[in-house]
């Protein structure tokens, strides 16, 4: 029984057919890297998984939560599917600690002391215990992204979606974020990441999903897929990325 299953997923923006029948199955504890050219639908696919994008047809199932074009209990779904964004999207008017505490307090009705304790734990996990009372604009990009990860983790999600979470970072800050993600993977967190970090995908990933023209074009274990791509498009893509 997979933790997350996507069947025959279609997404249109007006006449633009962005996702053309995506099927995907992800087991608990898997680390999945989604790669592909821009416009291949990889970010859209990721954003459908927590209902940030509506879907036109098909079914998404996450740990018993069921979502299709007609109905969705987004509040329940989103408590199981956390997300980290390219632009961090921390709440600028709240301290780091309050950023992490907010959703547990508002959504899960946690008490303040309980939420504070939880926030301290989550911030310790991402190595930022000393920043609880700082405001986000005092933090580096890498630190902000680690806070965003802590904020998502505070809701104890079953799956964590990562949407190009290192793309907005200066190169020297990428590693501190990736090492947090690597630690999460080691702890058994189910991760689905849209990423351009091919080396990281190969090193940490259990599954590589190559999106091409709105479809899953090729799936496999990263090491095998990178060593011997089965399709010309993926071979091309890997060549382009490696060459660049």
């Amino acid at each position: 029984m997979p933790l997350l299953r996507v069947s025959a997923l279609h997404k249109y923006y007006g006449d633009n057919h962005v996702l053309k029948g995506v099927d995907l199955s992800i087991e608990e504890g898997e680390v999945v890297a989604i790669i592909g050219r821009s416009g291949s639908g990889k970010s859209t696919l990721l954003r459908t998984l927590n209902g940030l994008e509506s879907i036109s047809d098909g079914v998404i199932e996450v740990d018993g939560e069921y979502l299709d074009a007609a109905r969705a209990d987004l509040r329940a779904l989103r408590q199981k599917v956390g997300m980290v964004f390219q632009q961090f999207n921390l709440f600028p008017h709240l301290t780091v600690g309050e950023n992490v505490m907010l959703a547990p307090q508002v959504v899960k009705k946690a008490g303040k002391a309980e939420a504070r304790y939880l926030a301290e734990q989550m911030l310790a996990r991402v190595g930022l215990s000393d920043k609880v009372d700082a405001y986000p604009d005092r933090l580096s990009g890498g630190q902000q992204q680690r806070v965003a990860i802590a904020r998502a983790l505070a809701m104890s999600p079953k799956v964590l979606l990562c949407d190009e979470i290192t793309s907005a970072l200066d190169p020297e800050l990428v590693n501190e974020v990736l090492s947090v993600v690597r630690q999460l993977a080691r702890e058994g967190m189910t991760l689905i990441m849209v990423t351009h970090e091919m080396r990281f995908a190969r090193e940490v990933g259990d599954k590589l999903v190559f999106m091409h023209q709105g479809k899953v074009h090729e799936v496999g274990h990263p090491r095998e897929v990178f060593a011997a791509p089965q399709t010309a498009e993926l071979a091309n893509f890997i060549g382009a990325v490696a060459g660049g």
Partner: protein
Amino acid sequence: MAYQFDFAPVLAQGDLLFKGALFTLQLTLIGTVLGVAIGVVGAVTRAWRLRPFDALFGLYVELIRNTPFIVQLFFIFFGLPALGVRLTEWQAAVLAMVINLGAYSTEIIRAGIQAVPKGQLEAAAALAMSRFEAFRYVVLQPALAKVWPALSSQIVIVMLGSAVCSQIATEELSFAANFIQSRNFRAFETYLLTTLLYLLMAIVVRQLLAWIGQRLLMGRR
């Protein structure tokens, strides 16, 4: 031949001016609290296109912003009794100010809401917050902070505009001034003092709003 300035007859009625000034401040306080509250509700319905309320607020905003305050006031005080709604001068003045500020602050606060990046809402949604929760905890404070100077200016404008309420015999500062100078004919002295009082009140209210903004909206460090 030269005019002999004499402030004594005006100062003798100083308590009237003072009471009038307090009355103006009261009107402003109530008008601000209720007007901004309407503004917040109107702004979110407009910014997020919450049908059908966005259209209703749109109509309200255009109606109020494109008609003179004094006509709005006269309509409420002299017009509404025809429909059986009889208000005291005080009630009519408060209502007119609330309605007026509500319309302007709807537009001002809407700009603030629209200036909050979309990513903030997505982050709140991804954390399983409802739209209302996202608005309440994520959008509102930064939105108000962004437009607080503009909103403060509008509040001062409405306070000064409340002088018009003297026309329906609301006993605020201008009413007191008119009353005093009609008794002692010391128009220059009376209106000079009244002008200074308005100036002082405007400065104090502006400072107070700036302080409130610092404390509540940019409240850090």
